[in-house]
């Protein structure tokens, strides 16, 4: 029963008017090579088997879909399930994409890997797969983020990666991404750029989505087994939007399933300290893609804020822009404080410490569960674990005895 057939992006990499390839000419040839290789691998059972085996024996997939009994009791209705990407090797869904892309890089014969990172989760995932496959790894990271994510920096260095501090612009994720693109433009012959989210020029938003959609495919089978039917709601956080896209994509043609992406409202949507791109952004062209963008009247990109470094990004994946305009996915935003409260709630109720990013999705339950009648099945994607955020939490909360 496919009455809502969904085929995106177009052959030239557009999701409606979004996406595309807005890059320096130097990158057009490597992007075309990457696309050709990816399309070949997508239909190659050897490639898919290799990736499947890695996920099974290295990542620890499939990750569980846990029934959140105490959380369900707390809200007094519905049935809440948690997709446990926090249990992936390295502690977040980022490894799904990093493994897929390192296999592509090997087939492309690239010797050197570069990546950008905000919170450090994608950097750690990339450094991890480079260690495993013996490739040289350089991770660009804003100086501000290096300061607030010291443990992940040390972890990347232990894994053999070189972490290059980025001192341009606002010294956060967007600047790290600029610097990674500049590196790629310069070293394009031997280097593959592992982008960490469903952003950047085509084919990245497509291939990162595809590598992440293992999340949604597993979830679909698991919920059918556990509840005997499809869910009513699926909630996931959106920064660049890779965990959400990977979760939503296998459900996109199931029109009965309401999909909700949750952005970071930071200090609040009426302040200028937030990262709610889809909620408050405007049409823009940024880092290789046409996208909603947080920018000023002059088209200068805004410095954004979120308590979670992984959501601290002024653009968003072009497919999310398309899904917002089409109305298929609803986008909402929750504040730093709401996310922190959700983090504490899930930890105390279920014994699961979620990442601050994922806590945004959990926080939305406060609103969603008020609106639901009685028996809805709700799935929340716990995209990562919160150990990395302890320093941030302590800084915000103090260490109560």
């Amino acid at each position, binding site marked *: 029963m496919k009455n809502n057939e969904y085929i995106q992006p177009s052959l*030239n990499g557009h999701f409606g*008017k979004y996406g*595309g*390839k*807005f*890059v*320096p*000419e*130097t*990158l*057009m*040839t*490597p992007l075309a090579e990457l696309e050709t290789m990816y399309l070949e691998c997508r239909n190659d059972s050897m490639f898919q088997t290799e990736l499947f085996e890695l996920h099974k024996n290295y990542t620890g997939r499939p990750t569980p879909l846990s029934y959140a009994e105490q959380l369900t009791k707390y809200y007094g209705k519905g049935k809440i399930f948690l997709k446990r990407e926090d249990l992936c090797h390295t502690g977040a869904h980022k490894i799904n994409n990093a493994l897929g892309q390192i296999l592509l890089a090997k087939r492309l014969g690239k010797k050197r890997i570069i990546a950008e990172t905000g919170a450090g989760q994608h950097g750690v995932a990339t450094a991890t797969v480079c260690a495993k496959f013996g490739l040289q790894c350089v991770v660009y990271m804003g100086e501000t983020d290096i300061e607030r994510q010291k443990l992940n920096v040390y972890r990347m260095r232990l894994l053999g990666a070189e972490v290059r501090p980025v001192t*341009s*612009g606002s010294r956060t994720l*967007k*600047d790290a991404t*600029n610097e990674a*693109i*500049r590196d790629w*433009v*310069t*070293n*394009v*012959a031997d280097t593959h750029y592992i982008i960490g989210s469903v952003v950047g020029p085509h084919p990245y938003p497509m291939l990162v989505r595809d590598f992440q959609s293992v999340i949604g495919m597993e979830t679909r089978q698991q919920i059918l087994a556990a509840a005997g039917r499809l869910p009513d709601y699926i909630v996931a956080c959106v920064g660049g939007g890779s965990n959400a896209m990977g979760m939503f994509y296998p459900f996109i043609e199931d029109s009965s399933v309401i999909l909700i992406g949750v952005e970071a409202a930071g200090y609040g949507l009426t302040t200028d300290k937030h990262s709610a791109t889809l909620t408050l952004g*405007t*049409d*823009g*062209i*940024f*880092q*290789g893609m*046409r996208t909603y*963008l947080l*920018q000023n*009247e*002059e*088209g*200068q*990109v805004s410095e954004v804020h979120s308590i979670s470094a992984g959501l601290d990004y002024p653009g968003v994946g072009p497919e999310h822009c398309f899904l917002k305009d089409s109305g298929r996915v609803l986008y909402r935003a929750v504040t730093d404080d709401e996310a922190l409260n959700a983090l504490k709630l899930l930890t105390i109720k279920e014994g699961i410490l979620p990442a601050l990013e994922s806590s945004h999705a959990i926080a939305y339950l406060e609103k969603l569960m008020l609106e639901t009648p009685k028996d809805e099945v709700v799935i929340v994607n716990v995209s990562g674990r919160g150990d990395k955020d302890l320093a941030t939490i302590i800084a915000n909360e103090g260490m109560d005895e």
Partner: protein
Amino acid sequence: MKIREYIDSVNNSGTKVLTAFLTAGYPEKNGFVELAQEVFEAGADMLEIGIPFSDPLADGPIIQHSSQVALANGITIRNCLQYAEEIRKLTDKPLIAMGYANPILRYGVKNFINDAASAGYSGVIIPDLVVEEYNELFPDERIPLDVILLCTPTSSAERLQQIDNKSTGFVYCVSVAGTTGIGKTHDEGVLESVGFCREHVKKNKMLVGFGISTPEDVLRFAPFCDGVIVGSAIVRLLEEDKKSNYRSIKNLISGLKKSCIS
């Protein structure tokens, strides 16, 4: 003046075209028009004026810095248009706007090209616009100024042909894979790949930029192009040089122009 006609006339007089790049409103908001005038008087044939952007991903540290200072100086697209109007009163030589896609999109692409043309710009260079996305920004057939596309050492023969077909004014050949301001142009492979571009750019004149900073560089590239573009080498000197009335800049430009003639 139309860019192509102007390049033809300079080339017909036996010299290559020297294009200088300045970031609008850098090093200072006031005095930029006078700086542009100095650059022309020292021997530049054309002037490329950079519209500052917060995230210039094709640029190296020197032009990134100039862009940040210009933004801190409060430079907007309107200022870039006003500069052109004022410089236009001083010279007929072509002015080219260089701007990333986003500020132009935000201003309104149609408004931008109309306003830029009436302010006196003859062309626009958008470093993050490739031939595949050209129609996304410029769906109309008639555009009141030249849209100059870039080619690079990684462009295939087929792409070079598409770029040449679509580009007007000239084709901007990026000499090396990299960002602006990198000096690694001294191996033979660079000349070879510029030569490859030259072979396939047939409709347009071709100007070479990126990594050209000295008169010697101009001499090396001259046989493979119709002119050169010099950016970072000029921008790097500006902050220091403004104290001495841009003496080093004038020396640099007149030296570069001499190499264009010989």
